[in-house]
């Protein structure tokens, strides 16, 4: 064990590069790049997702090779939270010796195999990463090119799934090719320097340890001579004694701790072996292997008769260090249980037993961190609950949320050098449960992760019981249009989505180009679209999105996620966060929490993810006093990693200047577009395109309605509504005849009149004699006083006088008051609340001329 010391004395600092991105499912923070700084060395190594890395294993001569799939921060771990998910490669020497003959040829020294075994735990701690390496994919019959035959390059020809060697699938090949194309780009010039030492460190250390481990390694690859410079560096580095969270501990207490560790290991392996007893054969094999490993250190022997070589492979790995063994043995369990799940034995029955055993072993595991005992207790509660897996899945999500919250405030302390080993040791042990947090078997996760709270919580997932939002469907299908007019009416309905939007080609093109360019550049941006209602703003954007989605399907543009929110469909501005978050990730949260989560998602680095296109309709409704909602919406796209395209729609052209603070409008930018109201020719074109191949309207009629509407508002909705109404009128007027004819100008005029004529004049004409008299009195009073306002008392006396002049019986005060309030309720008059009684002030809501005109008519 002492042989590890040399390597561990160098301290590496790992830090993320770029902003985190929120992983949708697991709510982890994912990153795209990490930089490794080796203390005492001025160089930095940048490792990106997708690159190939060396990972320290028990055989330092041949470190593991893997491809980084994801870098993420696991908040559930208190100590070292930087983790990575990898795709393993396997060396020939790591293949079970009994199976090595399957290859049928002598492997090349630098040949590795794509490890196609999904049950393998693919989560690693970032601190085990040694450095980047180059991997080249070759066809099975290709000869390894000589120019690349240095030790930093590995070659992949085949994949190994534990049973068979297979050629790489074409998809994998394509992936490799892509990576190779990117290869030089990824390896930034400055990393060149750092690359070799990091690699050589491992190499050198490996050399020293080699002798000790040679016994346990069944197959040896000839060692490569170490580079002298690297050795120098190594020695230099060995002076720095800053303890890394993990490594320092190993160095200083490696030998001291070993008894304790072995003891713990013993308990672990014992529990596992106990648990295995009721399980099928395949699993049993692993526990003796484990036991044997610790007792004799001879693995090869067991591997020989092991049927499941991945387990053997895993066991090989466990030799890294005693501490590592503990967790790997744990992870080792998970694959077996995963296998078991697929087998006929129902795992629900098995698990309690497993838990029982664990519980029984609890006293032995006393020196384990408290979280483990929590876990055990938790498991005992599981035993009684016998829940279904579905619920567990819910719980896992919940838990992840919770832990994220819980650990958020605690600073990342894995790098803090002040931490001494007493503190460090339990902290690291506590890491064990978290190791499995991201594995493939979620049913284990809650039991491991959840701090013992109420077991009830497991039964009651936080998500409210899902109810489907649905209006009940009709029992009888809706009738299809039977006549030409009905068909026309259907097509003229505003809700009918036309195949294309005529007259908005230019706007369409502009928006399309804007969004497309952002998608291609993988950047973000804002656009402000304004225009009076009914000018096709939302329809055009929808059309753009539809076209882009089609383009994305044929992979002309990168795929993107489309989210739509409408200010009018929110109960209050901050709800916009909740809606965006729910549509983005499916999570439900309160407005404040959602805002925080979204900020985290958009403002921090995340793994390569598709661009999000966000449409915000009725933007002006998102105005708040502090304007924080608008600010956030426009601020997110400015972050490089957010990849957010925000399209905003509102009615007023000068909204940014009018209601936004300068810091908000500045972020909105100057990409603006204004939709002009439709002209009459455009409206005509719209109608014609909708009524294509359908002769329902006279041409003149269409022109008339287009001109009418263009003169009034240019609102396409109005235009369609009028036409629709006209078809009804036409149908109605032709009811007696058999064949309803075309919609004529007369029909349309009637429809226009119905919709736009003022109803005040007809209302006055149809009012009672007394009401008309009262209106006359109002006019007289206004004329007398020269004001536009009068009290009720004045009008009443005027009314009485008028009645006297005409010799009519004059009405009582109460009657007149009733008349007045009746006119007021129709809003022919504007009046104060009626508590003022006689002194109530009255105004006309119609122009005097209208009243005179209406009264004179009779």
């Amino acid at each position: 064990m002492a042989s590890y010391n040399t390597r561990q004395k160098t301290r590496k600092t790992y830090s993320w590069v770029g902003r985190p991105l929120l992983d949708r499912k697991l709510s982890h923070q994912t990153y795209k790049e990490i930089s490794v700084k080796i203390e005492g060395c001025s160089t930095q190594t940048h490792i990106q997702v997708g690159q190939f890395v060396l990972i320290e294993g028990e055989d330092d001569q041949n470190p593991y090779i893997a491809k980084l799939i994801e870098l993420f921060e696991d908040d559930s771990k208190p100590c070292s939270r930087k983790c990575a998910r990898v795709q393993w490669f396997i060396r020939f020497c790591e293949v079970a010796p009994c199976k090595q003959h399957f290859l049928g040829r002598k492997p090349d020294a630098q040949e590795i195999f794509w490890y196609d075994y999904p049950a393998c735990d693919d989560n690693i701690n970032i601190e085990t990463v040694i450095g980047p390496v180059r991997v080249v994919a070759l066809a099975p019959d290709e000869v390894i090119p000589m120019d690349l035959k240095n030790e930093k390059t590995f070659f992949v020809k085949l994949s190994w799934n534990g049973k068979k060697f297979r050629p790489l699938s074409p998809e994998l090949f394509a992936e490799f090719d892509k990576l190779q194309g990117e290869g030089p780009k990824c390896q930034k010039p400055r990393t060149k320097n750092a690359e070799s030492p990091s690699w050589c460190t491992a190499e050198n250390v490996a050399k020293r340890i080699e002798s000790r481990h040679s016994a346990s390694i069944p197959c040896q690859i000839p060692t490569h001579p170490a580079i002298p410079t690297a050795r120098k560096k190594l020695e230099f580095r060995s002076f720095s004694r800053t303890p890394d969270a993990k490594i320092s501990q190993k160095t200083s207490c490696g030998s001291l701790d070993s008894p304790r560790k072995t003891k713990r290991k013993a308990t672990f392996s014992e529990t596992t072996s106990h648990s295995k007893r009721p399980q099928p054969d395949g699993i049993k094999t692993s526990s003796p292997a484990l036991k044997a490993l610790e007792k004799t250190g001879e693995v090869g022997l067991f591997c020989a008769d092991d049927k499941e070589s991945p387990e053997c492979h895993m066991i090989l790995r466990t030799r890294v260090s005693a501490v590592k063994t503990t967790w790997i043995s744990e992870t080792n369990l998970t694959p077996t249980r995963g296998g078991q799940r697929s087998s006929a034995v129902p795992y629900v029955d098995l698990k309690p037993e497993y838990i029982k055993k664990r519980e029984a072993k609890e006293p032995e595991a006393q020196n384990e961190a408290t979280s483990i005992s929590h876990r055990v207790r938790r498991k005992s509660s599981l035993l009684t609950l016998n829940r279904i897996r579905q619920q567990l899945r819910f719980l896992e999500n919940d838990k992840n949320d919770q832990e994220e919250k819980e650990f958020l405030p605690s600073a990342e302390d894995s790098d803090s050098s002040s931490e001494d080993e007493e503190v460090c040791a339990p902290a690291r042990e506590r890491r064990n449960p978290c190791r499995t947090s991201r594995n493939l078997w979620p049913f284990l996760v809650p039991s491991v992760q959840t701090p013992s709270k109420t077991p009830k919580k497991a039964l009651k997932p936080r998500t409210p019981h899902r109810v489907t939002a649905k209006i009940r469907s009709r029992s009888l299908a809706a009738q299809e249009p039977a006549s030409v007019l009905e068909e026309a009416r259907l097509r003229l309905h505003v809700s009918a989505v036309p195949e294309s939007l005529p007259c908005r080609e230019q706007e369409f093109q502009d928006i399309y180009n804007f969004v497309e360019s952002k998608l291609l550049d993988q950047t973000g941006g804002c656009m402000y679209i304004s225009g009076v209602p009914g000018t096709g703003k939302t329809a055009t954007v929808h059309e753009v999105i539809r076209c882009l989605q089609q383009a994305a399907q044929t992979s002309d543009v990168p795929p993107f996620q489309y989210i739509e929110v409408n200010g009018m469909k929110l109960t209050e501005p901050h709800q916009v966060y909740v809606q965006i978050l729910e549509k983005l990730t499916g999570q439900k949260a309160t407005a404040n929490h959602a805002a925080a989560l979204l900020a985290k998602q958009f403002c921090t680095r995340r793994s390569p993810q598709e661009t999000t296109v966000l449409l915000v309709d009725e933007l002006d409704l998102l105005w708040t006093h502090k304007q924080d909602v608008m600010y956030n919406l426009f601020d997110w796209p400015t972050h490089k990693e957010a990849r957010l395209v925000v399209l905003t729609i509102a009615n007023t052209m000068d909204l940014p200047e009018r209601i936004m603070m300068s810091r908000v409008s500045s972020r909105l930018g100057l990409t603006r577009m204004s939709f002009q109201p439709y002209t009459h020719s455009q409206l005509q074109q719209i109608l014609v395109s909708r009524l294509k191949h359908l002769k329902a309207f006279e041409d003149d009629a269409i022109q008339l309605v287009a001109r009418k509407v263009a003169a009034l508002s240019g609102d396409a909705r109005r235009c369609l509504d009028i036409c629709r109404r006209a078809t009804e009128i036409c149908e109605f007027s032709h009811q007696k005849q058999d064949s309803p004819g075309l919609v004529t100008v007369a029909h349309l005029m009637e429809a226009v009149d119905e919709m736009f004529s003022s109803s005040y004049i007809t209302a006055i004409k149809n009012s009672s004699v007394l009401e008309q008299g009262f209106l006359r009195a109002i006019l007289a009073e206004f004329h007398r006083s020269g004001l536009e306002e009068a009290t009720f008392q004045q009008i009443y006396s005027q009314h009485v006088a008028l009645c006297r002049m005409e010799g009519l019986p004059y009405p009582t005060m109460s009657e007149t008051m009733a008349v007045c309030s009746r006119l007021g309720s129709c809003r022919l008059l504007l009046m104060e609340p009626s508590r003022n009684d006689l002194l109530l002030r009255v105004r006309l809501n119609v122009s005097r001329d209208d009243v005179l005109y209406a009264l004179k008519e009779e």
Partner: protein
Amino acid sequence: MESRRCLPKGRLFARGFEFVEMSNRKSKNNLLHGECLSQVQRILRERFCHQTPHSNLFGVQVQYRHLIELLKRTAIHGESNSVLIVGPRGSGKTMLINHALKELMEIEEVSENILQVYLNGLLQINDKIALKEITRQLHLENVVGDKVFGSFAENFSFLLEALKKGDRTSSCPVIFILDEFDLFAHHKNQTLLYNLFDISQSPQTPVAVIGLTCRLDILELLEKRVKSRFSHRQIHLMNSFGFPQYVKIFKEQLSLPVEFPDKLFAEKWNENVQSLSEDKSVRDVLLKHFNVSKDLRSLHMLSMVALNRVTASHPFLTAADLMEAAQLCSMDSKANVVHEFQKFVQRKAHSIYNFEKPVVMKAFEHLQQLELIKPVERTSVNSQREYQLMKLLLDNTQIMNSLQKYPNCPTDVRQWATSSLSWL
């Protein structure tokens, strides 16, 4: 408005019952007659008080056609629509929609395939309540029993989601009836209206949004984006009938239906109504009433008061009944309370009667309670009651009229009135 008018209706109703009861008790021999009468009263009162869709519609055939066609298209073809029914109070808006819905539900293929949601602006005073009510009436899945769970925002997105999922052909059409539509326009941001109209203009669940309002300027109340989504269909109910029609309506409203059990009595009653409608004095009364107000509800009121005078001993309506009813209806409310007013006026006129101060103050307060006088706005609390500035809420003519009606009026008050009021 509405409630104020409803109140006397109820009171009269109760009084009517008493009369019937009493008459029944008094004349046991006239039992059969009494039974008939009580049935008559029941039928007619129902007709006058409730907006039952059984009664006929008058002069709104065109509007009715428009509405029923529109509803049918929504129900059968799944076409979304929005319409406003505008008309002054008492013009039969609710009656119209009730009629239309009744006819609609009688169509076999429709009755199963339609959902109705009634909202009233006076009850659903904000969107939150309205939303709960809609969810409840639609029986969505977040309704348990009669309770709707979840926050406002949740319910809102849930409902929108529900409506959005539907499509024209397969979803059940929903008819939204918004009574007192103008009050919905005062909700914050007009969120509810926007969404209802938006649904009616997008390919979602078919809806028919029907608003009832008495405000002619309703379109000006709508925000422009809401207005744009509204289809601008308006059905105006204007009471656009003349006096001959009014009389006809009066006759029809008082006539008994042919299903009346006692055919003989029904015939006699109807004959009486016919002769009434031709009577000169009745026509005068009706004309006066017609001149004051054309709406049918006031006609119902008049008939109701007259109907209450029908007893076993007085089995048929007479012209005198109607005249008296008309008088009751058009009575000046303030004239009745002038008595109290006298005392105060006496005091003011420095009459020979020297009332004590508390008595005068009491009278003064009483006047204030009756709202015949009213303090000038915003009187400070500190000012003494004796020196508060008051406003008189009566017209001179009203005072004169009431004084003339008041038989025991002291002469000095009368003198004061003639001198000072005519001078004023």
